[in-house]
């Protein structure tokens, strides 16, 4: 079998389309918060939630009892609930004496479980009979046909065949298949965790896997013959086609079949999908593998497993199952009931015995008995629930008066309402949250300050900044601003001593400029003793054999380390740090290189390489190597015409050896024109031009409305977290910096803004930075709330006098914020703020601490406006705060930029928390306690599972219940209504998010003193809290 190019492309495009609902999964080193239903954002929220639940077998809303708890403690709005219920009831036909509004409210607020239990065996007549206590009508004559139709819809179409076989025979092929696929993925996608890697990975996933699978003895011993399937075609597309045709899947179902296959391991599928899109990812370039490969591996193993189990159960193709449904409907029904876990427990044994016997007459008798019992059971259960509802609604007798038609209408209405119940609760919770915000925000004219503040601080918009900002404003004359934590400067950062770039920007932005970190202390080739020892220990631990032989020799050392970390994490870690080498003092290479400078850098590098090469190849001592020698060799390698006579004499080698050396320099040491061009190109990416720097600085400051009145200190506070033994550490870092610490971004913009020539240009752009203003970068450690300033050695001496006051303010704010936050993490909280701060420090160093901080949990609001709007309002660390002043943005460009970047990232964060909280097992990653790192890029539960996406239970749940209150992101923009509306309309992606209900949008218009709320496709307005003047802070 060999496919044409067109057929191959068809398979590829089908898989591409099928994978769209599967969200990307980024490696956890740079954890990216994302919406698990991102692929369905083109749909309205309610519709996407329903579809997502089906695809990923997850829950999109909390259980009713949880919402009832929210209602009882005032976190859901009863009036809103009543209005939604009234609206729904009004759209339904009259049902006898049933007060539908009251019934529905009772259903929502007093019933623990769903009331409607539907089953194809029971109709309204049966329920009516059960209500009146009469016997059920005989089972319908066409029952077999009804059941066959139901079985076809449940077992055929796009359902993976092995799932159907499992549902009929209980042979668990699906579980075995997932296990084998996960093992294959772990082998191929490993990024250095395994000691023995899969051979020949560079040929691609499917081919590398095929090479190994053909000779896999374990598969052979299990009777899984993959070789014959792989032989069918060389290409993954061909194998996929072969398997689908063998299984008899109709071509019109292939795309949805692929989606269901991918959704079974959506973590791995999401990772491979992301990896496929990240063309510059180191491992993608090294070991290519895409979803087509993944699908081919999965399909091959699926068919092999089906064929192996086929020895016992002949029906493993679509047509065979179809024919069984038609010819042995009763047996298949009983099988589906039993193995699909739908069987009535009381009859489980009887059904099991009948199925095991294989006797048709016993099967027939059991079927008749079972169907009758089930009909009675379902009808009675339904009646019981209806009666309980009627009684609670105060209409106990109403049910007995209803006709069959009225019961039908009642059941239909209840069924329709329960289907949309989740949205009712969600809207009611959001109404309450919006009301809380509207009551808290205060609208007033801009504050006129008598003198400039002592310091201004720019924090990330992150919800965790809100607390520390509030406290900083409270302890002194500080003015704070919120701005996306990359400060508007997308940077590709190359850290000192690392060979790869990290993107410090929101994931939707690709940085063009590279910033290098260079040391001011010179390069040291010595490694601290402890660091070297740690490396050696790590190697020993990772090796295959060494743990067996070294455990007794060095196991004790690990034991001591473990005791130290466990008993006294803070003291032990502080003591241990003394043995580590401190990071040297560094500067960032920010300025663009001129062509001459770049050329000089390339020459310098080439020179250093040639010296090493001559030492290696000719065994020369360094003092024997002269400048002329190096120059000559370089010119030859760079293919510039060169007289070689003197050079040959100096090197004292034959011409033949000389030519070999030059060739070696060109090929081995990459001293050649094309590589030099590439180096020049790379060097061209380094740094920013003066214009770029001025634009970034002016843009960042204007976007937050800081264009004048600069104080002496402008603190640029990036943020990051610090915890031990935590694969999710990066999830606690700055999302705007691509899941990295924000310090580098802070250093970049501070370094730019402190340059006189940049300031000059910025001033021309209307941002008047005073001459004595100094930008100081710093880091807000969100685990401890510590605020630490950096690059103080570059500060002008005139500012050093004020440094003590500045530090005192920062320390006080840190301690107070830690004291406010600590009660959310632990029960015993010291009264003293300093001790509370020390407790948070201990948490950050404790390797057994599964919850070093709550991260962005409980995020709820995104406020785009001046700080004065919420300065007097304790937002309890629940709001993203993006400073914005519409008065400096007449063309709405800054607002558009805020809603395009930070707001979208905020929405991803919000949705990730939402779904992880409502269904932590399916959309979240379950408990951290069972997690194991997989391949160095993800985590699995136990030793083998799908890659766990989403957030762990320790981040969103508290004692099994949501700590994060799941609502959609409530966004408030402070601007004239038309100004905000036009900005939203101009950004298509955001417009769709708002219209489809993924974001709840409000606009507070300071010019008319009103709040506009977007709901159900239209705007409604209400008055805002307006004050004449706002108090000047501290």
């Amino acid at each position, binding site marked *: 079998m060999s496919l044409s190019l067109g057929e191959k492309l068809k398979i590829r495009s089908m898989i591409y389309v099928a994978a769209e609902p599967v969200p990307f999964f980024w490696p956890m080193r740079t954890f990216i918060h994302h919406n698990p239903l991102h692929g369905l954002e083109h749909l309205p929220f309610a519709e996407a939630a329903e579809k997502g639940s089906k695809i990923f077998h997850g829950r999109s809303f909390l259980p009713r009892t949880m919402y009832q708890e929210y209602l009882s403690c005032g976190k859901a709005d009863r009036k809103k609930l009543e209005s939604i219920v009234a609206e729904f009831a009004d759209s339904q036909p009259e049902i006898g004496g049933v007060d539908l509004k009251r019934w529905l409210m009772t259903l929502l607020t007093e019933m*623990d479980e769903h009331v409607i239990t539907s089953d194809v065996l029971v109709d309204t007549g049966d329920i009516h009979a059960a209500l009146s206590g009469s016997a059920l009508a005989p089972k319908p004559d066409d029952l077999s046909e009804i059941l066959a139709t139901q079985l076809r819809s449940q077992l055929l179409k796009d359902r993976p065949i092995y799932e159907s076989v499992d549902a009929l025979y209980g042979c668990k092929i699906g579980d075995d298949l997932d296990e084998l696929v996960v093992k294959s993925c772990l082998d191929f996608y490993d990024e250095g965790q395994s000691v023995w890697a899969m051979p020949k990975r560079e040929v691609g996933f499917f081919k590398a896997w095929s090479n190994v699978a053909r000779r896999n003895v374990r598969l052979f011993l299990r009777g899984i013959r993959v070789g014959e399937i792989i032989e069918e075609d060389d290409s993954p597309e061909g194998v996929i086609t072969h398997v689908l045709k063998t299984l008899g899947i109709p071509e019109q179902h292939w795309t949805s079949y692929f989606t269901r296959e991918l959704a079974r391991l959506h973590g791995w599928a999401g990772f491979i999908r992301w990896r496929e899109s990240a063309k510059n990812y180191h491992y993608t370039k090294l070991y290519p593998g895409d979803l087509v490969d993944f699908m081919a591996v999965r399909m091959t193993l699926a068919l092999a497993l089906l064929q192996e189990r086929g020895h016992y159960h002949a029906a493993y193709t679509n047509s065979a199952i179809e024919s069984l449904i038609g010819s042995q409907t009763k047996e298949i029904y009983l099988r589906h009931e039993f193995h699909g876990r739908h069987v009535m427990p009381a009859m489980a044994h009887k059904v099991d015995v009948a199925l095991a016997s294989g006797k048709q007459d016993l099967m027939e008798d059991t079927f008749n008995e079972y169907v009758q019992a089930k009909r009675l059971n379902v009808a009675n259960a339904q009646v019981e629930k209806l009666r309980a509802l009627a009684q609670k609604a105060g209409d106990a007798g109403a049910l007995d008066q209803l006709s069959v038609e009225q019961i039908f209408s009642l059941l239909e209405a209840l069924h329709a309402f329960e289907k949309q119940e989740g949205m009712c609760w969600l809207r009611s919770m959001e109404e309450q949250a919006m009301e809380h915000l509207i009551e808290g925000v205060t609208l007033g004219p801009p504050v006129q300050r008598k003198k400039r503040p002592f310091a201004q601080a720019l924090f990330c918009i992150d919800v965790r900044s809100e607390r520390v900002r509030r406290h900083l404003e409270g302890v002194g004359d500080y003015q704070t601003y919120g701005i996306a934590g990359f400060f508007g400067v997308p940077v590709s950062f190359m850290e000192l001593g690392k060979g790869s770039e990290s993107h410090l920007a929101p994931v939707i932005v690709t940085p063009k400029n590279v910033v290098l970190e260079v040391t001011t202390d010179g390069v040291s080739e010595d490694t601290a003793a402890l660091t070297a020892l740690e490396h050696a220990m790590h190697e020993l631990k990772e090796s295959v054999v060494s743990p067996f032989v070294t455990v007794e020799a060095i196991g004790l050392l690990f034991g001591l380390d473990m005791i130290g970390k466990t008993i006294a994490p803070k003291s032990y870690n502080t003591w241990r740090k003394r043995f580590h080498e401190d990071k040297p003092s560094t500067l960032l290479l920010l300025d663009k290189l001129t062509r001459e400078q770049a050329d000089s850098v390339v020459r310098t590098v080439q020179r250093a390489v040639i010296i090493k090469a001559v030492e290696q190849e000719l065994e020369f001592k360094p003092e024997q190597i002269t400048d002329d020698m190096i120059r000559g060799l370089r010119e030859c390698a760079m293919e510039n015409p060169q007289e070689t006579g003197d050079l040959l004499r100096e090197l004292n080698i034959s011409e033949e050896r000389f030519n070999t050396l030059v060739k070696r320099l060109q090929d081995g040491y990459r001293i050649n024109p094309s590589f030099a061009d590439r180096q020049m190109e790379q060097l061209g990416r380094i740094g920013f031009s003066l214009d770029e720097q001025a634009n970034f600085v002016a843009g960042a400051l204007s976007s937050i409305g800081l264009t004048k009145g600069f104080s002496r200190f402008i603190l640029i506070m990036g943020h990051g977290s610090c915890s031990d033994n935590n694969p999710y550490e990066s999830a606690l870092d700055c999302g705007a910096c691509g899941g990295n610490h924000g310090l580098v971004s802070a250093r970049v913009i501070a370094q730019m803004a402190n340059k006189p020539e940049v300031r000059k240009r910025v001033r021309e752009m209307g941002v008047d930075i005073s001459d004595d203003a100094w930008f100081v970068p710093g880091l807000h450690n969100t685990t401890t709330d510590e605020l630490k300033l950096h690059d103080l050695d570059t500060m002008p001496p005139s500012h050093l006098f004020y440094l003590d006051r500045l530090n005192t303010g920062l320390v006080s704010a840190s301690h107070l914020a830690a004291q406010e936050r600590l009660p959310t993490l632990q029960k015993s909280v010291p009264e003293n703020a300093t001790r509370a701060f020390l407790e948070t420090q201990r948490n950050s160093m404790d390797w057994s601490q599964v919850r070093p901080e709550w991260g962005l949990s409980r995020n709820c609001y995104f406020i785009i406006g001046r700080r004065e709007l919420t300065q007097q309002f304790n937002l309890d660390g629940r709001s993203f705060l993006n400073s914005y002043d519409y008065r400096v943005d007449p063309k709405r460009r800054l607002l558009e930029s805020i809603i395009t970047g930070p707001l979208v990232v905020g929405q991803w964060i919000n949705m990730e928390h939402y779904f992880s909280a409502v269904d932590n097992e399916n959309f979240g990653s379950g408990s951290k306690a069972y997690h194991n790192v997989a391949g160095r890029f993800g985590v699995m539960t136990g030793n083998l599972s799908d890659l766990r996406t989403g957030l762990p239970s320790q981040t969103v749940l508290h004692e099994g219940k949501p700590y994060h209150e799941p609502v959609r992101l409530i966004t408030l923009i402070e601007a004239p209504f038309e100004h905000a509306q036009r900005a939203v309309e101009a950004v298509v992606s955001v417009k769709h998010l708002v219209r489809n209900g993924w974001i709840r949008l409000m606009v507070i218009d300071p010019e008319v003193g009103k709040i506009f709320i977007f709901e159900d496709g239209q705007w409604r307005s209400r008055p805002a809290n307006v004050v004449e003047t706002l108090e000047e802070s501290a």
Partner: protein
Amino acid sequence: MSGILLLLAGLFLPLFPLSMVFNGLFGRMQNRTLRIALLLIWPQIGVALVVASGMDVPGWMLVWALLTAIFYGFRALVLREVSLWVSFIATSVWAVMWLVMDSQGAGWYELAKYALGFSLPLILLLLLSGELEQRFGAAYTGLYNGLAQPLPRLSWLIVMVVLAVIATPLFPAFSAVMAAMLNVAPDSFMMALMLSIAWFMWGWAGARLIQGLLIGKETGAIATQADISSGKAWIYAVVLVVMVLSGIYMIGGLA
């Protein structure tokens, strides 16, 4: 006469195929109290008959008993209905009583104690299966997994009782198995091996039972079910503690 008594004892300390009588009777009896009575009395009759016979148990009968124990242990591996599981495991463990009775000088009281040590945890498991039936309509493994988190007290009791059934150290059944082992091991390695296999089968069957009920993802119906009351749990716990203490006492008796 003694031979007939011994053969009759094969009904009560069941030997295959005589064991079918007990299993048939147990399966037909739907009343839990009667089942408990059967579990309690049935092996005691067997013990009494053997003691009354005054005969030494012949070697071929010991092999027969071991084969029965292995066979029923093996059958229990695939059983999903808990009361049936109890019945089959009872048959398997009681068969081991023949090896205990081979003990020189073991009197009726001693043997009755061991038989009770086998019966008591089975009775507890039967009672716990009633708790499951009350909540889910049947005590059947694999239908509703994942009880451990939503019903922690009931799950804990099931685990402890199953451990007692499968003769885990400290429980009385362990003493009985050890007594049997000490009886046969010095004379016959093969019989010791067969006893170990039977013991292994019980452990395996017990693990499958626990896995089929307590482990895995919980299904929707489970979350709404109430756990066993703490009062009841305490009663079970006290009985378990008494069993452990008597198990320790019985081990001491071996010395």
